[in-house]
């Protein structure tokens, strides 16, 4: 038990530290690296909760794909941080006030938080016994049955994102040398090869 508690505090404090560093570090590459650290530690928290499937997905998707993509974008865009930070002090008072109000609201609303006595009866999907089904199976049982509507809708949202990315960036450029296989195969010798008789001593 004590090991679990220690692990929890370790993972959560590193996550919070890494999250702060993501927004405060000067170099965007460092930010992305801290983001990866935050993801790894959140994955650790999921393992502690017994949700190893989510932990693995977090590592595979966020660290493996999203963070690497961020890294590419950061390196390719050459963002000028000094310019981005410009005006930071100017907006600090207003931003600080808004942040403070939100924080107060958070404290006010969560201060009165009690777990409702009806929480067990109002739960949407009963938690299966962890000794009988693995949590991958439990998620699968819900996602493809009760939540099929949400699952399909999420798929459509990704489709829109894909169409959007292509519509906004794809251009058919001229003068690009592309391989056209059917053209290559259809090329006949008589179209391209010319046979010339060269008389001796006079050249072509």
């Amino acid at each position: 038990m004590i090991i679990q508690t220690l692990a929890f505090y370790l993972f959560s404090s590193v996550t919070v530290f890494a999250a702060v560093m993501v927004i405060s570090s000067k170099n965007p590459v460092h930010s992305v690296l801290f983001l990866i650290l935050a993801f790894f530690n959140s994955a650790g928290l999921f393992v502690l909760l017994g949700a190893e499937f989510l932990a693995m997905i977090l590592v595979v998707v966020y660290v493996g794909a999203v963070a690497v993509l961020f890294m590419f974008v950061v390196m390719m865009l050459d963002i000028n941080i000094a310019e981005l930070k410009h005006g930071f002090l100017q907006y600090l008072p207003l931003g600080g006030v808004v942040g403070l109000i939100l924080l107060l609201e958070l404290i006010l609303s969560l201060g009165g938080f009690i777990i409702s006595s009806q929480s067990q009866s109002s739960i949407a999907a009963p938690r299966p016994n962890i000794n009988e089904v693995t949590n991958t199976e439990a998620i699968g049982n819900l996602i493809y049955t009760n939540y099929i509507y949400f699952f399909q809708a999420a798929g459509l949202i990704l489709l829109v994102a894909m169409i959007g990315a292509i519509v906004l960036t794809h251009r058919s450029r001229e003068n690009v040398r592309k391989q056209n296989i059917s053209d290559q195969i259809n090329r006949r010798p008589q179209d391209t090869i010319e046979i010339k008789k060269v008389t001796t001593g006079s050249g072509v």
Partner: protein
Amino acid sequence: MSSPIFPDLIPVIPEILIAIFSMFLLILGVFLREKLAEPLIRYGSLITIFVAFIILIVLPEGEALTFGNSFINNEFCIYMKALVLISSAASILMAREFLHMHQMDRFEFYILILLAVLGMFMMISANDFIALYLGLELQSLSLYVLASFQRESTRSAEAGLKYFILGALASGLFLYGVTLIYGFTGNINFNFLYSFFGDPEFTVPIGVIVGLVLIIGALAFKISAAPFHMWAPDVYQGAPTPVTAFFSVAPKIAAIALIIRVMIVPFGNLGEQWQQIIIFISIASMVLGAFAAINQTNIKRLMAYSSIGHIGYALMGLAVAAGPITSYAKDGIQAMLVYITIYLFMSLGTFACILCMKRGDRMVEEISGLSGLSKNNPVMAGVLTVLMFSMAGIPPLAGFFGKLYIFQAAIQSGLVGLAVIGVLTSVVGAFYYLRIVKIIYFEDAEEKFDRPIAPELRGVLLVSGLFIVLFIFIPTPIISLAEVAALALFPG
């Protein structure tokens, strides 16, 4: 483990149909040649909308719940969905010439509109917060892309980016609100929340109120009500005009349906908590819509402020519906539905006029460009005048009746102050509508607009003009349909 029940798919047929058709048309567009794809997919999307409309009408009557109660279909949904379909079909028709003229005629435009319509359908039919959020995102994501569809124009790109960032912020607020609601109640289903809050022993914790406020804020952003309207003028001005026409109607209707459902169904028993918020938003929108529009010179920007104002009037109906008396509440919602139906036609007609404003293949967006239109094109001048009078709320045009019903409902339920403010702001608003009429009739004629006007635009102008003029003679169909729709929200 019990085997899951196969969900009842009958209420979802329109959604499934739009989803399948849009994906089919997408594949078709990818494989066809560019010149062939655009017209074919334009007709394909119009057919999809038409078929969806027919199915919507013949769906079995009454309330139908499916997908584990997260999807609902009743008369209210059908009414709103029909309005969405009408406005998107009109937008597709109006877009053709503009897209062609600006070399933007790519088939993805229609696919994105179809997917946005699908998102709106899901929003309208959502019966829990996840379904609502997914529909909202599907719609918004398509709209962000549509706003920046004119890639060569920096204004259009700016509009898309601004809309995207502020929209993401609103989505964040919304999700934060939903997590608070979920945390304090343990469920996200609308019907569950209704009975949960209806429990007489239930005292409202402050967390629920914060969650409610955040959700209202996010929804107010989607309907561009003040003080969450900042994106609207820039996006309206920057986006390509047919997209602006689409923005000003279809997403507005879907978001109005959303705010009505979220306020009436899950939070129906918390009326006294949210009534003052809605009243404030309504007053702020009406005042801002009236005063900020006075100085505008760009007609698309003017329309943005005008739509903010109209949303303010429509929200008055929702404020009425917060009251404890169900019959007044029903009247409020009914007036609101009639109001946005009339707004839909007025807005489509005005945008058809704006799309006609072009000289030498260039769009004219300045209001001064309209000067002397009465001499160059008396018919268009006449229609635009009728539209402006109707927007200003001058009898006997449709716009007057929309405002009349709303004010009646407000006064009936005792919100006299709100109604008085509404009347005063509509007088101020009349100033800038009538200024356009003055420019059309009493200023020196400028160069003529290009002729001939595209047949689709003429059609939209004709239909909206006829609707506005004839509403006084045959108001019953709309009013009784709106009544049936409003009744579906208040069972029992």
